[in-house]
């Protein structure tokens, strides 16, 4: 599904602030996997996601999705395969646009945005149906600008948008880091059920080890720009929390 070959990323190349964010990372994800990436701050987790989404070009190495080499494909074109959830609940939706318009845009992620008025009654009915399943009352607020919603509502909407058009891969970068504990649980459950329903391959970056154990079937650890441990639940069994914690013990928290 996704194959990363020898991916290296260096920021501020050749200066005193040079950072080797990723060092020769190679990794494959099979279709349907729910991969959880854990690791200390600055270990390269977000960079890894950004390389897959096309927002950061690797210095060298190759990214392929479903056997297609996409290393040179720019972010907005990769959006036909890749949908994203960001850490900042405000980042995944356009605040000034209505709930309806945000969903309309997401429904066209893999196709062209043409000169037709697409938010017709049929479309509205179908998104009302989907929104009502979130049970957040958003189905009655189609014309509300998204900036008037709460962070949890916006993140839930972002999730719905991520699965509203054909996609193969869902990238989530600490989707619940800015949410309260109750909303976090709800968002993670929603993410899990939506990604299963849409049969997506999922990559989740998180610091929540309970989520890692609960949702991931593959758990990987990143340290200092390298992928150092892989735990396959299918082969190695469900890990204990203490086991995952012990992975961290040897890590120096880097200053970057």
């Amino acid at each position, binding site marked *: 599904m996704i194959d990363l070959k020898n991916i290296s990323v260096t920021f501020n190349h050749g200066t005193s602030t040079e950072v080797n964010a990723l060092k020769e990372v190679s990794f494959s994800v099979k279709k349907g996997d729910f991969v959880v990436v854990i690791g200390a701050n600055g270990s390269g987790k977000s960079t890894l996601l950004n390389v897959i989404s096309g927002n950061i070009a690797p210095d060298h190495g190759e990214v392929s999705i479903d056997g297609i080499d996409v290393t040179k494909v720019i972010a*907005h074109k990769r*959006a036909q395969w890749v949908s994203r959830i960001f850490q900042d609940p405000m*980042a995944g939706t*356009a605040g000034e*646009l209505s709930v309806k*318009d945000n969903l309309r*845009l997401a429904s066209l992620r893999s196709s062209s*945005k043409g000169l*037709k008025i697409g938010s017709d009654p049929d479309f509205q009915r179908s998104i009302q149906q989907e929104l009502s399943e979130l049970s957040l009352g958003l189905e009655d607020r189609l014309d509300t600008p998204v900036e008037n919603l709460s962070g949890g509502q916006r993140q839930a909407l972002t999730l719905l*948008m991520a699965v509203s058009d054909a996609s193969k891969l869902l990238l989530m970068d600490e989707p619940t880091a800015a949410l309260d504990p109750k909303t976090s649980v709800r968002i993670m459950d929603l993410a899990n059920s939506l990604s299963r329903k849409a049969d997506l391959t999922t990559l989740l970056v998180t610091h929540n080890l309970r989520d890692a154990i609960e949702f991931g079937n593959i758990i990987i650890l990143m340290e200092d720009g390298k992928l150092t441990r892989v735990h396959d639940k299918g082969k190695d069994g469900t890990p204990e929390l203490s086991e995952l914690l012990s992975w961290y013990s040897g890590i120096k928290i880097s200053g970057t």
Partner: protein
Amino acid sequence: MEFYTTAIIQGLAFACMGLGIFLTLKIFKIPDITTDGTYTLGGAVTAVMLTNGMSPLLTLVVVIFCGAAGGIATGWIHTRLKINALLAGILVMTALYSVNLAIMGRPNIPLIDDKGFSNQNIYLVVVVLVFIAVFFVIWLLKTDFGIAMRSTGSNPVMAQANGVNIVYMKVFGIALANAMTAISGFLMVQYQGFADINMGIGIVISGLAAVIIGESLSRIMSYKNIAITILFVVVGSIVFRVVLAFSLDMGMNPNYLKLVTAIIVLLIVGLSNQKFNKHLILLK
């Protein structure tokens, strides 16, 4: 009274430019001041084509393309060369001064009466063109393409993640805005009966004023609808001209026109940021 009729017609003629500024400033959040150059460009092309006996309709088409080309230049410099939008606009505006002079061949071209739309028809043409422009912009922003445009300005990261080519969108937006600005030049040259190389200096303020007054008006009446805000931009453009005409009518020294213009815009920006309803009574 004719004084105020003139102000209203001028306000309408500048409304196209106001809509353009609305697109760049409010939809794309890009401060584009190529306006001064593309407004004169529209006027210069109009004067040269009409005095050479070309049809006004063909002239309008060429004006639209010339304005768009000016916008594309700014958009390209801004997005591809990664230069600050204001600076990109200033560069193109400066360069256009020479281009406009080259097009005109001399600093001033008077239109003889039988060239272009005659004085009575120009009123009708102004109204019809503004009407078309308003409905075009409202329609465009409602389409799927328009949603992509608005998302680009509102949240470019999200737009990109949803498959929007934000570079293309920005260049398109600046091009469209400057095409509309050039239409204002087309209208004003025919209305005033001449094109002048300096007609565009500081003109961007009229467009800004239209957008700011329009936005403030729709805020006071608490309309959130984008179509209504766009209509208010047209109203704002007229209000601005009428307020200027009023100050002249009150016996203001015309030498102070630009100063008063700046103060009016400052007042509106300042007041719309304060508690709004209370201060509006003062404005009246």
